[in-house]
């Protein structure tokens, strides 16, 4: 079993959406390299609860295996921390060393208001999907699954984009707080499949408009979003979104 080591933490504490927040210092000396980052925070919370002086630190998580998209910390200025293609919950303490100072902040964007401490409200993403991120098919009305063959490479690429877990790291890391990668990924998934084709234009325009309405920033092609995306989704999705948007606009009134 590995030796334990010590880390210094600066963690954002904020009581509620309208309250001011600040970074608070903690020192944890029972860190084990096999712990996940969230387990490290669990251990810290247990200490805080045992001491009883302040409330434990709130942060979001559920699956703890990198798939639900709940976890969302900005660690030392990087959304989901230093490791590529990794969610906060899959980041392990072996990526840090004894004596490190680690700054932990929530995802910051106007469209993601802080609920408490490190927990933010990402329902804007749901509303973007609601605007058109689906194929309108009634339950039970589908033809046989093999009736439409799909080129394997098309299906595979659609899958690559469909792996987005909706975590919001792209927004958190984007200097403009743009939701283009998230929106682009869903569009790139559905728009390239024959099932998604009939609603392609309508979907693209509606989702882009919703993204504006939620108060996300524009995309300046920084590609920082791609760098932090735990699923490595390429910003080609964003370019594709623009292409479809232009086509839809030029196509005029037809839906």
């Amino acid at each position, binding site marked *: 079993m590995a030796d334990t080591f010590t880390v210094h933490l600066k963690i954002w504490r904020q009581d509620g959406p309208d309250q001011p927040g600040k970074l608070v210092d903690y020192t944890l000396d029972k860190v084990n390299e096999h712990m996940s980052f969230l387990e490290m925070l669990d251990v810290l919370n247990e200490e805080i609860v045992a001491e009883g002086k302040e409330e434990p630190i709130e942060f979001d998580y559920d699956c*703890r295996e990198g798939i639900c*998209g709940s976890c969302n910390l900005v660690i030392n200025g990087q959304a989901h921390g230093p490791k590529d293609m990794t969610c906060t919950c899959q980041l392990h303490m072996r990526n840090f060393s004894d004596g490190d100072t680690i700054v932990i902040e929530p995802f910051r964007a106007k469209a993601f208001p802080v609920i408490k401490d490190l927990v933010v409200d990402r329902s804007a993403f*749901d509303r973007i999907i609601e605007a058109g991120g689906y194929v309108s098919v009634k339950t039970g009305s*589908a033809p*046989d699954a093999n009736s439409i*063959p799909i080129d394997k490479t098309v299906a595979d690429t659609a899958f690559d984009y469909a792996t987005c877990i909706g975590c919001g790291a792209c927004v958190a890391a984007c200097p403009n707080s743009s939701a283009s990668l998230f929106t682009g990924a869903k569009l790139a998934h559905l728009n390239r499949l024959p*099932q998604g084709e009939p609603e392609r234009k309508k979907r693209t325009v509606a989702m882009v408009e919703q993204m504006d309405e939620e108060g996300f920033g524009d995309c300046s092609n920084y590609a920082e979003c791609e760098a932090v995306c735990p699923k490595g989704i390429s910003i080609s999705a964003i370019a594709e979104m623009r292409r479809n948007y232009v086509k839809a606009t030029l196509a005029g009134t037809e839906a």
Partner: protein
Amino acid sequence: MNLDSKVPSGPLEEKWSKHLNDIKLVAPNNKRKHDVIVVGTGLAGGSAAASLAELGYNVKSFCIQDSARRAHSIAAQGGINAAKNYPNDGDTIWRLFYDTIKGGDYRSRESNTYRLAEISNEIIDQAVAQGVPFAREYGGLLANRSFGGAQVSRTFYARGQTGQQLLLGAYQAMMRQVSEGNIEMHTRHEMLDLVVIDGKARGIVTRDLVSGEIQRWMADAVVLASGGYGNAFYLSTNAKNSNVTAAWRCHKRGAAFANPCYVQIHPTCIPVSGDYQSKLTLMSESLRNDGRVWVPKDKDDDRHPNDIPDEERYYYLEEKYPAFGNLVPRDVASRNAKIVCDEGMGVGPTGRAVYLDFRDAIEREGKKAISDKYGNLFEMYENITDDNPYEEPMRIFPAVHYTMGGLWVDYNLQSNIPGLFVAGEANFSDHGANRLGASALMQGLSDGYFIIPYTIGNYIAGTDLDEVSKDHEAFDEAADNAQSQIDKLFEVDGDKSVIEFHRELGQIMWDKVGISRSEEGLKEAISEIQDLREEFWNNVRVPGESSNYNKYLEFAGRVADFLELGELMAKDALHRDESCGCHLRAEHQTEEGEALRNDEEYSYVAAWEFQGVNGELQEELHKEDLEFDFVELKQRSYK
């Protein structure tokens, strides 16, 4: 208690279609007038909410997570079964049905299981139409693979993220209904009680997890799709927020809890690394298609696994079960892992692990082929353990994974409380004493897309539903109940953390109500759980306040329920004095260590009725006899 299963008469193949013909319908313009509450947005809840809303009902949907898309179903990796027979390897609906019944060790209802197999094909059609990007062959058609417990390739998959893709399909269908105003979505809401008026489920009470407010919701029917209760074991492959609270509170309101002791333990998980461990990670079962499971023959062999020659390796599954080898069903694989570890052959720092070795597969097919199949799983393993599975065997160990038990339901998926429907892992319905791989997704979606939407209509059309109001005393009582439980939790003000209690409960459950159970152990477990529960209510510390986001408070409520459920699980396991499927009573095994059933005495569903708790949990046992008219009961054998 009335446990009428309402199974339609007639031949197995015709029951469901006949039932559909007989079902009462609600006129389209009347559907608008009916509210349906759906608790849970996993595969079962999401698909039910979307389909009900599409039909025209006013749906109110609830989940704990901040988005419907994050329900625990998202984590399912391996795949979903269907009897499409696309690979032309002889699969049929009957065969899928038969495998499921047999896999469940003849402890499920024939009629439900057959219907599941029947509907399976429609699910695939539905998902593909939604744009779920299942794996495809170069010819452009869907690909299939084989999964534990089956000799045909009937599993559809989307790399190692099948659950994610299916859930996103259901979630998107839901969001479409949200945008059309047919679904009112309430995320970060936890159901804390069921409201029963005149014997019918008429609403729920929830806590807004952000503001802490206790709220009341009214409806004509309630669908509970709140998932499984594997987290009673503290460490499991379930997501951290998975819990039994919604189901348990319904149980306390009169819904029977069926077969609570049927817990599936998954053989291929990443072993525990330390006491800070918060959950266990599953490595998809599909790995067993190519990985070979072994331990060193010599207990004290502490060589690096790569240095141990073949003749000194014990490929115990291949030796004991030549026909199925590494692909034996989960319970068999898990039990055997435990046996070799108990015998001291376990590997790794804790001795609680076995090897899953890809050396031969890599030699045979090349690293590229293996990485195409399992790349993301290998990366996940390496990320968690820091070991490279291309170069040395994985270390795996069983972990609690799925619960076959759940609220009792009839053929309509209605519980014994009229108007309370239960779908997905939360009900007990289709898997008997053991669930086959890739069939939970199938069941959740079958319940949600294709069964509940019809059977609810039947209920609503055939029931007099009086006007009720949120001021009804039943609502007052349920809301007070929820609030007073919260107040009580704060009042204890002890000095042991909620997580500490949960961990201790988990340890008792794992040691005594886990892979192998004995009368003695179960009795100990029952009294230890009672003591722990007593201690909990005297010494738990819940920090913070109730009028704010407070994860510890949420967990405290759930642990309190697990502390009761745990006792029921042990009681059920104790009363079931036979072995079947995942339930292995040490007293009842074949010479080969297989579960030895006692069909004479135990061929029934154990449905427990809550009577109260005072130190001890009081439950009354009711039995629904299982009749097998179409299959012959056999001793399961995977030799």
